[in-house]
């Protein structure tokens, strides 16, 4: 579904990604863990086509999308859940949800979104930035589900959420996975990560340092948490 080969990226002079190669198969949920500044967000932005200084190739499905602008990648089925949640202040909740075109084979109808997120329904005519942090996170996820995106690029979707909401995000991602949606997830919460993901990559100083499965992450949780500085 997603194949990244020898991806390098720079911010000005500083190189933040060094020859990263990884693959995510259809229906897989894969996490990227790593310290702050390891290049996780840059990797997601590069896949989305939003990071200009980069080298290497990104393929989606059987198509090389390296040269495609962000809006065309989105139309192929990439859904971005940005780390700041990407709520528009000048759009209502409903407008935030319906702004992106439907791109995948299985977009959620608005009614289904509101059934799954009653809190969004009650605030549907409010400006999206008036929502609580947790509600904005739900909105960001609901938006890519309504798009029908086939690959979700989620940048720390559980950051700052209450345990109850973290569980809800997990349920949603598992549900999406059941319907064949692929997820590349940046995540610091290892407990959450092992609950939803199939595999994990540890990113360190812009490189893939290790690839791990769930049991490995669980058995090394203490060591990894110490490394991540949490």
């Amino acid at each position, binding site marked *: 579904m997603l194949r990244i080969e020898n991806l390098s990226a720079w911010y000005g002079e500083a190189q933040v990604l060094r020859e990263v190669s990884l693959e995510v198969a259809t229906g897989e949920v894969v996490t990227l863990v790593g310290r702050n500044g390891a290049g996780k967000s840059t990797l997601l932005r590069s896949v*989305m086509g939003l990071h200009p200084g980069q080298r290497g190739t990104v393929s989606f499905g059987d198509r090389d999308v390296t040269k495609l*602008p*962000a*809006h065309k990648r989105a139309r192929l089925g990439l859904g971005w859940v940005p780390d700041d949640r990407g709520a528009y*202040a000048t*759009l209502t909740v409903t407008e935030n949800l*319906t702004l*992106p075109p439907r791109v995948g084979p299985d977009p959620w109808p608005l009614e289904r979104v509101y059934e799954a997120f009653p809190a969004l329904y009650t605030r549907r005519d409010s400006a999206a930035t008036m929502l609580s942090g947790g509600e904005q996170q739900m909105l960001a996820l609901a938006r890519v589900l309504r798009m029908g995106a086939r690959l979700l690029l989620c940048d720390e979707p559980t950051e700052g959420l209450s345990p109850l909401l973290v569980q809800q995000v997990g349920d949603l991602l598992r549900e999406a996975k059941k319907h064949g949606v692929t997820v590349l997830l940046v995540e610091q919460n290892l407990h959450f990560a092992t609950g939803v993901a199939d595999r994990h990559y540890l990113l360190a100083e812009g490189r893939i340092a290790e690839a791990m499965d769930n049991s490995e992450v669980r058995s090394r949780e203490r060591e990894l948490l110490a490394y991540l500085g949490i």
Partner: protein
Amino acid sequence: MSGFLQNTFNGLVGGAFYALLALGLAVIFGMLRVVNFAHGAFYMLGAFGAYVLLAEAGVPFWAALVIMPLALGLLGMVLERAVIHRLTRLDPLYNFLLTFGLTLILQDLVKSRYGVQSSPYATPAELSGTVDFGLFDFPTYRVFILGFTVLLCVAVWWVLGRTRVGMVVRAATERPELTRAFGIDVGRWVTPVFGFGIALAGLAGVLAAPMRAVNPLMGADLIIVVFAVVVIGGLGSIFGSVAAGFGIGLIQAWGEAYLSDFPIVSQTVVFVVMAAVLLWRPAGLFGREEAPA
């Protein structure tokens, strides 16, 4: 009392021009992050175009009111494609140099052909005379300007606030990069939005022709105040630019009527208001701090 009402009405009519020009500047700045210093020149071209159409081809006011905004909107779109779009990747200083340079070129082109003297433009016959409001009479043409501008602002407000096109423009204005990530080709909207802003300036120019002196510098005189209006309303804020346009029109008219013994005060009051607003709210009355991309 009737004097006060008359001054107020005059202020609203003056404000209508500020509102139309500031509205165009706001949508252009919102979408392109370009401050269009040439906006006053397009206003002048609107008025001059109406004058030339009537004097040299006998085209009446009503036709000019349609032709000039369309023609200037088209010219704006060509200029956007040819030069303006190159500004996005450059230092803001180039924004000033290019659009100010455009102003000088357009002004001098008109000057070299028609000179600097003001040309008269007759009020269309249908709109001559006055309307009796009981307490005072008011020129029909000014009533028309006010009504027409208010309708136009409401229409723009409706399109931006209630339609899919407006939603896309709002999203692209607020967070261009995020909006591209949601499958919207933001670049495709830039040229028509620029053309639309220029068309509004041209329209304001046609409306101004019968009541203001038509000359090559008429835009340069007006645009300074319009920039104060835009700053007060909040750069890029649609509602702010319209509200501040009418507000400044009123303040100016009252200042001229009641502070005429203190010309220094009445001529600078707009800029004093601007400085006060900036101290109190640096982003303008209705502006928001820039959001991260």
